[in-house]
């Protein structure tokens, strides 16, 4: 906006000013000359004004105009143009000094006014631009509002549609539900109908059957017979017995016997299963007691007393239940006791395990640090050492490279000298090769050293692992023999043993991680080195680099050539076009395309005939 303001042409603005002046003049009814004059006095000098002034004062009305001016000026607070009259009769004289002063003051005033006007105008412009901006903003916002409104309407429409759809779907669902209900009712009614029909049919069928039975069976059917050579004996070798009440009773008995046998068999099975489960339970209980009893002192001492009392209960229970005879009692008497005690113990065990878990996690975090930092430090030291070595190697390589480059640079400076010194370079090359092989050997040594290091580290890890295992087994043994230990000891052991497995594992994992890390770093290191070497390798022999630079140069030149050619072509083209235009105009005012083709055609021509053109 400010820029725009500065850009505004002052001349233009002045012009516009005058224009505005005119308009204002025309607008304002020139009722009084005075006001016009005031206005005129405030405006900058312009031709119009000049002409106006010239019209104002003529040779004839000097006096009048002076007096008029005097009057005017006095009304504005300027000192009078006339000298102080001594007497009334004497004609007042024009005071030149006062006039000049007035003029000067007027001019100053004029300038001030101009300045003010300028300011006001700039202000005005600023405000106008502000206004414009705001208007544009306003219109933009309006547009935005419109679009958002439209969007909103669209969304509302969509929402409405979706709701409509939803309603429809709901309706459909309801319809479907109704349909299902209806169908179910139909099915039910059909089922009853079917059953009814079936029954009816069956009755008829039964009647028919009955009738048939009468017809077929009651008539002495001679055909129904068995023709047998001789009767065979029963499979069991016994003779058939008559059917009597006795046999009926016997059959009943037998049936019940079979059923009883089955039930007995099943009961036996269940008993066996029960016994098995009881055994498992007992074993579990025993193990739990043995597990919990050595450490029960600890919770009594340390933690809440509730577990302690529970344990004492458990102890009593254990004392009771450990008697074998208890197990042979029927479940009902023992069940409650047993389940309660098991539940209690289970709770204790659970809390214990949770506690241990917590401790393990805590100790794990602590122990992790102080145990493994050492080894890690070792490793870090080693890696640091190795890195240092690598650094040294790199530096050496760098110096070599620098030297080579210096030589190369000198060689590159002028081809003639290089050509001259070619023989020398060959010699140099030989030397470098020697150096290179030496360096390679060094590298090999380094690598060997590193390998030995890693091997040592691996060995260390393995040893550590073995040691850990040994310790774990020892701890386990101790844990198993815990009961023989005094409580404090056992406590410690327990603490360890509880998490020994996991911590061991963690240690192992850490080890393995480190082991993994090491070869990794090694493997990382060597390629870096190698890459460095390979990077430096082309640098050290002169030829390849030289070649590179050469090729680069050649590339550059080619690019230049390529760049140049279009530039060269352009004027030609222009020229060609010119000629072409001329030519085409001259020859035939064909189509544009034709013209272009002609252009391309003539382009070559022009290229050829370039010299002919001015």
């Amino acid at each position, binding site marked *: 906006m400010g820029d725009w303001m500065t850009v505004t042409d002052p001349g233009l603005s002045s012009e516009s000013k005058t224009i505005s002046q005119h308009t204002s003049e025309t607008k304002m009814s020139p009722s009084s000359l005075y006001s016009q004059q005031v206005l005129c006095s405030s405006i900058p000098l312009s031709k119009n004004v000049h002409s106006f002034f010239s019209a104002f004062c003529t040779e004839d009305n000097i006096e009048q105009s002076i007096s008029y001016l005097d009057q005017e000026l006095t009304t504005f607070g300027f000192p009078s143009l006339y000298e102080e009259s001594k007497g009334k009769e004497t004609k007042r004289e024009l005071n030149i000094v006062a006039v000049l002063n007035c003029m000067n003051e007027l001019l100053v005033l004029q300038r001030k006014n101009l300045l003010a006007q300028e300011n006001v105008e700039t202000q005005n412009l600023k405000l106008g631009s502000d206004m414009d901006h705001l208007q544009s903003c306003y219109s933009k916002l309006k547009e935005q509002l419109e679009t958002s409104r439209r969007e909103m309407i669209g969304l509302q429409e969509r929402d409405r549609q979706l709701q409509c759809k939803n309603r429809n779907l709901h309706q459909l669902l309801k319809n479907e539900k109704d349909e299902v209900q209806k169908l*179910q009712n139909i*099915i039910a009614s059909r*089922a009853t109908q079917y*059953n009814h029909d*079936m*029954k009816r049919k*069956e*009755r008829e069928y*039964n009647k028919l*059957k009955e009738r*048939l*039975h009468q017809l*077929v*069976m009651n008539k002495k*059917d*001679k*055909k*129904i*017979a*068995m*023709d*047998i*050579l*001789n*009767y*065979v*004996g*029963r*499979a*069991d070798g016994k003779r*058939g*017995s008559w*059917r009597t009440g006795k*046999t*009926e009773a016997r*059959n*009943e008995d*037998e*049936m*019940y016997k*079979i*059923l009883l046998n*089955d039930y007995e068999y099943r009961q036996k099975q269940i008993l066996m299963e029960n016994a098995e489960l009881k055994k498992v339970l007992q074993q579990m209980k025993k193990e739990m007691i043995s597990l919990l009893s050595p450490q029960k002192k600890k919770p009594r001492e340390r933690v809440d007393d509730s577990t302690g009392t529970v344990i004492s209960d458990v102890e009593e229970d254990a004392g009771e239940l450990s008697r074998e005879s208890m197990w042979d009692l029927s479940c009902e008497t023992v069940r409650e006791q047993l389940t309660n005690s098991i539940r209690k113990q289970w709770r204790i065990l659970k809390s214990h395990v949770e506690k241990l878990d917590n401790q393990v996690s805590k100790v794990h975090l602590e122990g992790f640090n102080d145990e493994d930092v050492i080894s890690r430090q070792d490793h870090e030291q080693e890696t640091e050492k190795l890195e240092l070595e690598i650094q040294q190697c790199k530096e050496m390589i760098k110096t070599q490279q620098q030297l080579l480059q210096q030589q190369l640079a000198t060689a590159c400076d002028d081809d003639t000298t290089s050509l001259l010194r070619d023989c020398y370079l060959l010699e140099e090359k030989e030397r470098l090769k020697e150096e290179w092989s030496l360096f390679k050997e060094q590298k090999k040594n380094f690598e060997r050293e590193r390998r030995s290091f890693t091997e040592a580290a691996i060995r260390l890890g393995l040893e550590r692992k073995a040691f850990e295992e040994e310790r774990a087994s020892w701890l386990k043994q101790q844990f198993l023999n815990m009961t023989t230990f005094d409580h404090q000891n056992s406590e410690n052991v327990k603490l360890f043993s509880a998490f020994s497995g996991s911590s061991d594992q963690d240690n192992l994992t850490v080890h393995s991680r480190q082991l993994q890390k090491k070869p990794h770093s090694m493997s990382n290191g060597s390629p870096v080195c190698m890459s460095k070497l390979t990077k430096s390798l082309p640098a050290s022999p002169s030829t390849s680099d030289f070649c590179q630079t050469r090729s680069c140069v050649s590339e550059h030149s080619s690019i230049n050539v390529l760049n140049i050619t279009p530039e060269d072509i352009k004027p030609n083209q222009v020229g060609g076009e010119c000629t072409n235009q001329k030519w085409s105009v001259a020859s035939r005012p064909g189509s544009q395309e034709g013209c272009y083709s002609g252009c391309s055609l003539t382009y070559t021509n022009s290229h050829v005939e370039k010299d002919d053109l001015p």
Partner: protein
Amino acid sequence: MNFSEVFKLSGLLCKFSPDGKYLASCVQYRLVVRDVNTLQIVQLYTCLDQIQHIEWSADSLFILCAMYKRGLVQVWSLEQPEWHCKIDEGSAGLVASCWSPDGRHILNTTEFHLRITVWSLCTKSVSYIKYPKACLQGTTFTRDGRYMALAERRDCKDYVSIFVCSDWQLLRHFDTDTQDLTGIEWAPNGCVLAVWDSCLEYKVLLYSLDGRLLSAYSAYEWSLGIKSVAWSPSSQFLAVGSYDGKVRILNHVTWKMITEFEHPAAINNPKIVVYKEAEKSPQLGLGCLSFPPPRAGAGPLPTSESKYEIASVPVSLQTLKPVTDRANPKIGIGMLAFSPDSYFLATRNDNVPSAVWVWDIQKLRLFAVLEQLSPVRAFQWDPQQPRLAICTGGSRVYLWSPAGCLSVQVPGEGEHSPAGTGTSALLFVVWRHTGRTGEAPAISSQGNCPQRLCVNLKAGAQCTGDPLPSALQGRSSPSLT
């Protein structure tokens, strides 16, 4: 695996004797009894008409041949070839005939299920049982042969009568809470009777031997219900296959459902082995052609080879879209059978007809799925070991065991078959029950125009009379012996 020569057969009638020594088969009106080991004809009986049904007595001494068209039953004795017995049902007609478990009584069901006549071979006595229900499985005997349960229908109500088989005395008679009883089956221990309703209603009722209702189970309503029921040999489980494509396993303690086996067409679990039968047409290389078949026509000309491939999960099985507006839609579990050791359950979902599911009952989960190229027609467990034989109506018999799967080409094209006829079709498989393990040959019958029988022998079985086609020697599978 060795195969015998192909025997003629009619009406798919061939049965091993319960003791596993003999094999009875029918050719029109002739009954041929062979020795299982030698396959030589031991006896040959001639009946009065075409035989429609045969059954061995439990002691393997008698064979019953029923000729339903004539209303006749003829009984033959294996020990006394001259002994004969003919039972004529006369104008009452005959629709079913079976032995009682003692092997001395024959139960004949007259036409229209008017009554069941119990004929004794020991005495002159004849007993009648009225009102037997005409249903799929209306009679069942306990394993020990002591009791028979019979479904009855009186006054539009279902009843079950329990008879003592020794003297056909009625032991219990009770009505069942069913709309239309369809089947009854004793548990193998003979103490629990499972009763199920028709497919219109899902209902299984369990009765004790003394007629007490132990439990009733219904999985759902308003939909087609039970299609098949099977007891586990240990009587511990009752598997109920239904039209919703699920098998529900009930336990014997609470009679509640313990698990539900769904039969999804897509198998995603990587633990499940899916065997897919793959057919490979043999490359007609020069080696095949230049080598003339050792016995032209005698050996089978395998048009294509089939073998199992283990499909990688997820597998989607081929399903059949059932026609729901017809009666007996092809959906639901139509076949299910427990292995003899109760460890496995084989099922077939009728709308995935080419697949057999094998379930592990110990872990109550799916164990393996076999997808055949053609619909499975029948399967049967080996009575000795967990081994399942499957036939699909093709010319192969398929064997599954927990160790793996096997497809065996049955030599069908004998010299009798006219050249150019299609491959034979295996329609059923029967395992022989033997006392000894390791010798359980399967029979497969072929339902081609000349129905023939092929006895499958173990490698090493003496078949002096039947030189095996040399082409088959290479087919014996050492893994199965």
